[in-house]
């Protein structure tokens, strides 16, 4: 691990890849079945967010706005717009849950959304997620924590065959599915909270729904308190795990900073073997481990001579950098959107909180970028290779089905990086 710079050294962001906390909250609510996320703020925040995710997932995105206006902004405590929103939403559809989350506007006004939530006679979970604090990752985590605190019923029972996964925001739907399937391969009934793997995985539904289609159900959330094991993935999810453990003192918890690369994957499998008593995992798992090993060897020569710049959310960076590291990839710098304890653990020569202007300043240090859509223009202008990862990816389709985790995803990730590096060396390197 190298030098860590936890704060940006300038007054502004230039070409930011950071995303806001309410957007993370929205996404978390979209992992709940038949939920209607309700963003409390001006209509623009919601509109931007809706377009943002629609383009990333190529799916219609359910979300509504409390449409706070000038007059209300000054006069109201949030009551009117929220109560009115719930009324108008439920006129047309019947969500299983309304996911109320705030932006900076009502937080600046000091709206008491907890108070308002108490007055609403409809299933509703609220979360304070001002966009002048945190970022995508914390917005998602705060929401997950709110879901747990406000929905999960305390329990003293334990279902020894039940596991709850708490995935960080940057895990794409297929990745959550793969983690769930891995647990299920050891005989566990597995739930993910939130669960994008069944809502935003890019499936053609039977009809066009106005609510989120798929995800974990509210009923299932209520009963998460009797799982034998809680697996949090990503340091941002630690507090969620703590909240869930608060519901039942008999539940146990295991934390993973990420599930990328051979070592982390081994840890998960080892845990599942212990927990299940199964001594030899399914053929498929055994096979994919051998393939990941082979992928590491097949890609090591290429990656070992390639210098990477990775930009993204802290938990995402941790996984990507570890995967690269294990096969010899040299992460010259990892740029994080926000500060996090995770930064200390990232396998990179340099870790900083910053923006794409910082990426540009570091141009001499790397060959290939890994980051979101906004890196595209930069990579092209600087003549760098690019592997697109993170939110948003507006240029490509199939983002929800890009798997980088565990043995299988790890193998494909290394192949993709090595192939991008060779393509770059052949055609772009001077």
């Amino acid at each position, binding site marked *: 691990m190298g030098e860590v710079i936890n704060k940006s050294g*300038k*007054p*502004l*962001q*230039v*070409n*930011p*890849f*950071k*995303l*806001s*906390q309410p*957007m993370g909250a929205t996404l978390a609510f979209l992992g709940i079945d038949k939920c209607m996320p309700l963003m409390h*703020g*001006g*209509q*623009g*925040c919601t*509109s*931007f*967010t*809706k377009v*943002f995710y*629609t*383009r990333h997932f190529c799916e*219609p995105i359910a979300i*509504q*706005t*409390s*449409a*706070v*206006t*000038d007059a*209300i*902004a000054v006069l109201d405590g949030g009551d009117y*717009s*929220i109560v*009115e*929103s*719930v*009324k*108008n*939403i439920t*006129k*047309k559809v019947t969500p299983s849950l309304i996911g109320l989350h705030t*932006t*900076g*506007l009502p937080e*600046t*006004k000091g709206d008491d959304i907890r108070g308002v939530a108490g007055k609403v006679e409809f299933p509703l979970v609220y979360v304070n997620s*001002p*966009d*002048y*604090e945190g970022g995508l990752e914390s917005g998602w985590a705060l929401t997950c924590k709110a879901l747990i605190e406000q929905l999960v019923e305390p329990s003293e029972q334990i279902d020894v065959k039940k596991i709850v996964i708490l995935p960080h925001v940057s895990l794409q739907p297929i990745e959550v599915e793969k983690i769930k399937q891995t647990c299920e391969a050891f005989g566990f009934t597995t739930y993910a909270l939130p669960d994008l793997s069944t809502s935003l995985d890019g499936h*053609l539904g039977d009809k*066009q729904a106005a609510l989120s289609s798929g995800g974990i159900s509210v009923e299932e959330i209520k009963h998460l308190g009797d799982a034998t094991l809680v697996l949090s993935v990503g340091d941002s999810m630690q507090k969620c795990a703590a909240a869930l453990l608060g519901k039942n003192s008999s539940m146990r918890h295991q934390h993973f900073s990420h599930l990328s690369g051979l070592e982390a994957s081994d840890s998960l499998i080892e845990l599942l073997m212990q927990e299940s008593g199964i001594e030899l995992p399914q053929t498929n798992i055994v096979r994919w481990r051998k393939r990941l090993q082979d992928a590491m060897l097949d890609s090591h020569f290429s990656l070992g001579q390639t210098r990477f710049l990775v930009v993204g959310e802290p938990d995402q960076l941790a996984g990507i950098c570890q995967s690269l590291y294990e096969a010899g990839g040299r992460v010259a710098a990892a740029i994080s959107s926000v500060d996090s304890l995770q930064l200390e653990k990232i396998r990179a020569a340099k870790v900083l909180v910053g923006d794409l202007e910082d990426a540009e300043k570091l141009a001499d240090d790397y060959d290939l970028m890994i980051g979101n*859509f*906004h890196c595209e*223009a930069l990579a092209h202008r600087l003549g760098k290779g690019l592997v697109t990862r993170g939110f948003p990816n*507006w240029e490509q389709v199939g983002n929800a089905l890009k798997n980088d985790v565990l043995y299988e995803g790890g193998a494909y990730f290394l192949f993709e990086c090595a192939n991008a590096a060779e393509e770059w060396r052949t055609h772009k390197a001077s």
Partner: protein
Amino acid sequence: MSAKPKIRELLDESACEHNKSKKVACNAPTPGATTGGCAFEGAQISLFPYADAAHLVHGPMTCLGSSWETRATATSWQGRDFTQMGFTTDVSLNDVVFSGEKKLTDSIDYIMEHYAPEAIFVYSTCVTALIGDDLDLICKQAAEKYDVPMIPVHAPGFVGSKNLGSRLGGEAALRHLIGSKEPETTTPFDINLIGEYNVTGDMWQYSHLLDELGIRILSTLSGDGRVADIRTAHRAKLNVIVCAKSLISLTRKMQEQYDIPSISLSFYGKRDTSNGLLAIAEALGDAELIERTKKLIAREEAKLEEKLAPYKKVFAGKKAVLNTGGNKSWSIASALQDLGIEVVATAVKKATEADRVKAREYLGEEGVLMMNPGAEQAKLIDEKGAHLLLAGGRSLYTAIKKRIAFADVNQEKKKSYGGYNGLLNLAEDLKNALENPVFKLVSRRAPWEK
């Protein structure tokens, strides 16, 4: 705060036809039942295409983080293209509590030092408007310090819709830029293009024709625009509003202040493009120019028809249902008709009265004006035997259930549909849609559903 435009006044803008019939909808979005962007977005849309100016968003991360690099507004500016960059103060809790003014001032200094733009537009947003950061003062001081225009744009999201924001953007340009500089030369045929943002190069589909006719684009708000040019806009002979009702207030004020008349038109489809060119010539009032314009139109239409011929064969007998809003309800219909496609129905739910009149005009008595398109369109496809549905993404389901071709009118466009040549792009895309087997195949039943 005197420099801030009066919101209420803008909302009641007399030139806004939209307002006349639906005053309430215009200024009070319904909580829990609102779609569409906010005033900030509108202001950005109207000003962002100035590629020689930095656009600094003073607010928290949602405002810029989710919105930069979303619009393909082409520019010929040779310097660094600021339309493809994002600048934001990314205000934090600390700023909210103790004011973000210092951060804003520092940010302006940073931008001037590192990027030296021709101007900086500083956008207020909900949070920074609410905490009362004094943009006017900061911009004034910075403008003096750097001798470069610093334009405060007061369009925080909560004041209203995207449309209102565009008006506020225009207002900011009028107050801080227009009239602040004299053009080096003038010609009798100087015009301003207002509301043309040159998305995917739409403007370039016809700007060369204006050029050929001797009509000079003195300035634009703001497609392929330059700060220096818009400052001279008060010397134009004519304001041409391109498909942008939101900027009528701007042109009205320019008429009041500078005596510049304005016309409103569209460059979508063959007929509208021809009508638009002629309207400009006529508004400029020069007989010879009008004659030249007529000849050019005849030439361009002939050229276009030749290129369209193979497409028209494909489109012969094809019927379309159009489900979109606003002026698209008739402008796309018109373009479709130019291609030889029969438009059997168009949605007018979200259209103004004037738009409905126009739609009726284009579709004729046989055409259906859908007031509740969501429910009507499927039935109409069957009844009319339509081959093509043009609508937003949500209606794709209707198309594949009916096994007819679909074109997403909201699809992120990468190529222009504007002017004469743009019609060829539209033709190509619609041909591709009509010939694409996916709409018939994709909804085949799964083996386990049989």
